């Protein structure tokens, strides 16, 4: 039987109605809730403080002032206090917390919106199905202590998240928290919530919308501006939330329109569109947004939420592209047409009377968007509307440039636009072709030119040949890692024989174009790391090809074993990456995860060599995802724009007493190697990042073979990319068995000569030197209560 959320009356209880919020299955009721179910801010604070003691927050203000309240602005330079008594450190921590919280809210609000929509369509009792897994919602279970079975079970999860978000947001008010460390604890809390919010959003869409469920061999789809057939009407969807777009695809399916209309997505909506229907195509990540609009190719644009440029309506209107807004978060000042007839709306948009329409009736959106595309397509193609200059204008514009450099100072990446203009004026387009790849399409340069040159358009025109060739392949987002895969690979990860999981995620704010993450991924794949990816990064990885014209997705398959490349899905699918570490703890190590965040994070920190790389992270969402990883014990590396997030968590390897750990078997303390060395750090170049990733995969739990493999990669990549044997390689050596085989002798010599270690050269054994010995049964922990026999 099924009882729905409802009100009903029970006999003999007069004048009383019972409001049933949620029907609890007996299974759930019996489930232990664990030590910290639905933790409040302070419940996991001890864990945070342990992390923060070792990985100290380091602040890099983007601004020395605070402008929160009318006591200010206040000048906090040099860690001075503002008028409310806050100092620079605490303010930076607060600001980072607030920005991260905005990211948490973005994901959770997306989850709530989608859940409301899916409950309306499928009912609260629609069962969760994520593929071959008993452990379906690892984050939810670890944080909340409940095991959701239906989508309605996520209602109290979101209630909890929203309550905590409100509590956290309150602390960003003037006159609340005064301690930087406590703001960090709050930021970590926000990060944790974020992962759960993402988990909710992705699980419900995977369950209800038939997206791939832990499927390793998902199909490949086309990606790239060059892959869209612009002779057809082009319907472009931008954003992250599939709710409205699903109706469009349903309508197109029902009316056989996939042949007649190119349905293309931009940003994460694109991932989710392909997960829903493989006939959809992907234009690319956020960096293509303005570029693609300016090309004039889209005939209709549908926006939902997140990572949608604020100027979409302005830009689209200039090119007569109607915009349909579908979400409270982005309304662009448009009139709400939800109650109007589709035909009337189409009429208003075709005639240009209205630049766009706002609709909350998704049935109507589903019908309107394709029908409108069919009408607008021919009209717009006829008119040949584009913002790009023609050849003659291009010549004129590039020649009018005075090389003043204003645009260069306006460009966030300081790209040499002036030089490219000069070269192009002389007929040489190579600089524009190079620049195009590095340009993230932000459009700031446009506002700076005293000559009024529409710079981005000129760049695009200059690189047009190149852009037409922009075609690649992306493997459709697969969703979670299934329990069987964990069973197969868990051991290798914990012992280190699979050298690590490298999660290449986040946005396209790369320092030097997207080619870098392609090279990084390729290098790590060749070295048998598991590379998982999502969001914009997953798209950009599919844009590059090897000499044989193959993308990485075509070269590497998608199962969760060493040396494979897994596209997890959209931004919200990132939850499955962190959840994977929980699954290892639960399935491989048999830990009880229910409401047991601290223990699981402690496990992950010390045993699972997973590292996140958010090389182009720009967003507050990426920030909070990273911070959430950190609370769970997963280190994260950012690109050189990363310090603008204001805060990193850095370890000090030379500070030996920060690296003491307990052995859970007896509480004895061991001084361990700094593994992982940092929790949140940035790097300047791809060459710097590769050995860093290898190093951050070390874990105290590595067995000899695992450590040997990891050390080999660390040393090899250091030598390859930095030209040296790293000067800290030896501190990761616990015995000769840890040494890379091929270099064993050579390294033993170094240990003797340069570090004064004692070597038994007959047996090729280390006699003295290492901080600690390998002990396969060492149970590293940072949490006193987890020591055997400890009483809380």
């Amino acid at each position, binding site marked *: 039987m099924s009882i729905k959320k409802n009100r009903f009356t029970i006999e003999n209880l007069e004048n009383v109605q019972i409001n049933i919020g949620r029907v609890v299955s007996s299974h759930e009721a019996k489930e232990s809730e664990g030590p910290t179910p639905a933790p409040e801010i302070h419940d996991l604070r001890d864990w945070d403080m342990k992390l923060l003691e070792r990985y100290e927050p380091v602040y*890099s203000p983007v*601004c020395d002032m605070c402008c929160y309240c009318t006591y200010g602005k206040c000048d906090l330079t040099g860690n001075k206090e503002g008028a409310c008594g806050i100092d620079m450190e605490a303010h930076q921590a607060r600001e980072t917390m607030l920005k991260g919280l905005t990211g948490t809210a973005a994901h959770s609000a997306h989850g709530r919106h989608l859940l409301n929509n899916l409950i309306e369509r499928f009912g609260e009792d629609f069962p969760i199905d994520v593929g071959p897994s008993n452990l379906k919602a690892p984050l939810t279970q670890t944080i909340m202590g409940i095991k959701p079975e239906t989508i309605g079970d996520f209602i109290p999860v979101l209630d909890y998240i929203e309550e905590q978000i409100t509590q956290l947001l309150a602390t960003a008010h003037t006159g609340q928290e005064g301690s930087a460390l406590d703001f960090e604890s709050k930021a970590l809390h926000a990060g944790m919530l974020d992962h759960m919010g993402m988990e909710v959003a992705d699980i419900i869409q995977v369950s209800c919308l038939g997206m791939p469920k832990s499927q390793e061999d998902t199909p490949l789809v086309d990606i790239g501006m060059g892959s869209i057939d612009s002779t057809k009407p082009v319907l472009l969807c931008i954003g992250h939330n599939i709710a409205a777009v699903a109706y469009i695809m349903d309508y197109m399916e029902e009316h056989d329109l996939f042949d007649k209309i190119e349905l293309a997505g931009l940003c994460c909506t694109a991932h989710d569109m392909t997960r829903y229907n493989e006939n959809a195509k992907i234009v690319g990540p956020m960096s293509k947004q303005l570029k693609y609009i300016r090309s004039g190719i889209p005939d209709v644009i549908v926006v939902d939420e997140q990572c949608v440029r604020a100027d979409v309506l302005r830009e689209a209107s200039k090119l007569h592209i109607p915009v349909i807004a579908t979400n409270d978060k982005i309304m662009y000042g448009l009139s709400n047409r939800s109650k109007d007839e589709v035909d009337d709306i189409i009429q208003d948009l075709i005639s240009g009377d209205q630049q766009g329409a706002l609709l909350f009736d998704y049935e109507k959106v589903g019908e309107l968007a394709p029908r409108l595309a069919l009408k607008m397509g021919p009209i717009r193609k006829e008119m040949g509307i584009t913002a790009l200059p023609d050849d003659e204008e291009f010549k004129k514009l590039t020649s009018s440039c005075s090389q003043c450099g204003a645009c260069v*100072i306006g460009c966030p990446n300081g790209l040499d636009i002036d030089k490219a203009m000069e070269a192009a004026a002389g007929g040489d387009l190579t600089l524009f072709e190079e620049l195009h790849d590095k340009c993230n399409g932000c459009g700031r340069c446009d506002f700076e030119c005293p000559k009024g040159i529409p710079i981005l358009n000129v760049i695009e025109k200059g690189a047009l040949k190149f852009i037409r060739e922009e075609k690649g392949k992306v493997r459709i987002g697969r969703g979670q890692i299934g329990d069987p895969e964990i069973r197969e690979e868990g051991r290798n990860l914990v012992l280190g024989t699979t050298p690590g999981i490298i999660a290449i995620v986040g946005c396209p704010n790369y320092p030097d174009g997207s080619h870098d993450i392609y090279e990084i991924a390729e290098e790590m794949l060749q070295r048998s790391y598991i590379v998982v990816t999502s969001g914009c990064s997953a798209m950009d990885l599919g844009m590059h090809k090897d000499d044989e014209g193959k993308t990485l997705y075509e070269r590497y398959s998608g199962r969760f074993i060493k040396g494979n490349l897994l596209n997890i899905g959209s931004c919200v699918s990132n939850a499955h990456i962190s959840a994977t570490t929980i699954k290892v703890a639960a399935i491989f190590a048999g830990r009880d995860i229910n409401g047991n965040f601290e223990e699981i994070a402690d496990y992950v920190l010390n045993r699972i060599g997973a590292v996140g790389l958010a090389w182009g992270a720009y967003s507050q969402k990426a920030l909070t995802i990273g911070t959430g990883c950190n609370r769970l014990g997963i280190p994260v590396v950012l690109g050189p724009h990363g310090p603008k997030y204001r805060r990193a968590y850095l370890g000090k390897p030379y500070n030996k007493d920060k690296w003491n750990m307990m052995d859970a078997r007896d509480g004895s303390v061991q001084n361990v190697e700094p593994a992982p060395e940092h929790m949140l750090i940035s790097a300047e170049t791809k060459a710097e990042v590769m050995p860093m990733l290898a190093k951050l995969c070390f874990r105290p739990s590595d067995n000899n073979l695992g450590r040997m493999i990891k050390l080999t990669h660390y040393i090899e990549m250091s030598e390859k990319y*930095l030209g040296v044997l790293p000067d800290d390689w030896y501190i990761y050596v616990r015995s000769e068995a840890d040494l890379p085989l091929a270099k064993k002798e050579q390294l033993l010599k170094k240990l003797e000569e340069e570090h004064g270690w004692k070597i038994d050269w007959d047996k090729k054994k280390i006699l003295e030197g290492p901080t600690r010995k390998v002990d396969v049964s060492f149970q590293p922990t940072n949490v006193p209560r987890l020591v055997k026999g400890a009483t809380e």
Partner: protein
Amino acid sequence: MAAKVLDTTRNAVPFDRANVPGPKMAKAVQAEMAGKLISKAKRPLLIIGSAISEEGIVDVIKSMAEKGIPVAATGSSLKRLKDEGIEASYVNLHALVSYLKDPNWKGFDGNGGYDTAIFLGHTYYYASQLMSTLKNFTKIKIISIDRHYHPNAQQSFGNLKPEDFIRALDVVIAQL
């Protein structure tokens, strides 16, 4: 052609337009004065980033290293420096500023921290942000002899033309 007078204090606006941190911004410094300040430092550290492909920069680093200024090779600069036979220690710049903040850090040579950080050859925004850590949380003097104006330094060149840049660096070296 008579050489133009070199003025490294001109055009001292943040190279990223919006990189205006607040009331305290670097003084634009003449190359000679920058050299003097460096030569007066008790424990200077030359911090090199990955943007050192411009002709002439590596020679300058070499000269400075030869004058006894220890070199921290951040980013992926080490390979290039090694190739030129320059003695340097690799360190990640983000980590480095956190060490510099730590009064207990013993430095690369074990003799203690540094009183002056000299920045050269960096990805602009990356170095700028990490100077901000030093500026706000340490007493270390920050001297940028990079090609672009760095507001978070104490002393910085303005935005220089490539040719002036190398000339300026030569002037700096002459003071050491």
